[in-house]
């Protein structure tokens, strides 16, 4: 019976009306539901519209704390390989070079008085025969 009443592109008017009424009745809710829904929407809109300064401050403080922790805990970078043997070698090499340099330069500064003493004793040896010669004259 129903099928004959179908047009090509529309539901029969009475069936469409009944179906719509049925659909509306299924979504029918008591007034409290709509009031509650409006309150929930208002609450969500208010929360969304104004982020509270307290939560903003908390977020900034948390971010700063995390940054600080990462900065303190994390190593500055990969450690260089320990050049222990190189250091020993370098120290020996430096000492050797210093000795060679000192020998090449001449008398070390610390031994300078000895050199002077030696020089003066040599000059004494040379002057003594001259004094003796004066006496002879």
């Amino acid at each position, binding site marked *: *019976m*129903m*099928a004959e009443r*179908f047009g*090509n*592109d*529309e*539901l029969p008017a009475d*069936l*469409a009306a*009944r*179906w*719509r009424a*049925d*659909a*509306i009745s*299924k*979504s029918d*809710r008591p007034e409290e539901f*709509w009031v509650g*829904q*409006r309150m*929930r*929407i*208002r609450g*969500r*809109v208010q929360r*969304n*519209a104004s982020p509270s300064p307290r939560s903003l401050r908390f977020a900034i403080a948390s971010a700063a704390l995390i940054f600080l922790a990462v900065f303190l805990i994390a190593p500055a970078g990969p450690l260089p390989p320990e050049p222990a043997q190189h250091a020993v070698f370098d120290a020996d090499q430096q000492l050797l070079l210093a000795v060679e340099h000192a020998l090449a330069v001449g008398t070390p500064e610390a031994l300078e008085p000895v050199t002077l003493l030696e020089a003066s004793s040599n000059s004494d040896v040379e002057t003594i025969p001259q004094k003796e010669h004066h006496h002879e004259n």
Partner: protein
Amino acid sequence: MSLSLPALATQTQECPRAIIAEDFEEIVCLYQRKVYRVLLLLLKDSEDADNLTQECFLRAYTNMKSFRGECNVQTWLIRIAVNLVRDHARNRRTGFWNRLLRLEDQCAAGVDPEPLAIVASPERGLLAREELDAVWRAVDNLSTRQREVFILRFAEEMELKEIAEALDLRIGTVKTQLFRALNHVREQVRR
């Protein structure tokens, strides 16, 4: 400046314009039932429909400044609602577990698993009731696109142009989808 409800209804339906924040409460009052109904018919879950109704108005509020009145407020809200349903449907895991839980609840309660199955009404004749049941079953079996078009056309009595705007489709596509949906409903009712 806040508009009275009838004035806003006239403006939003006939002479669209940009929405101002003061209008928002009135827009919620005017359209919450319609948005909820569309969502309920599409989702077939009252809790999801309630959540997405709230989400729909929240998005509307957030994007209020971008509304330039190219369509009326109702079409704009329905478009947001339909997009929310599509996003919701994309979340497969949630959908799967919700369906599973609902099915289990219904099996435990010993009721028909069809969420919107009609409860027999003593006032109506048995034949009329069967016709209506057949339409509901047919609507449940439509493709997502066809169901959207069918619900907006017959539950909300929207014009084809409005449906096209709400679903972001061409009018030709809306006509095709509606034609196919009606064919399917006709076949279901003939059985």
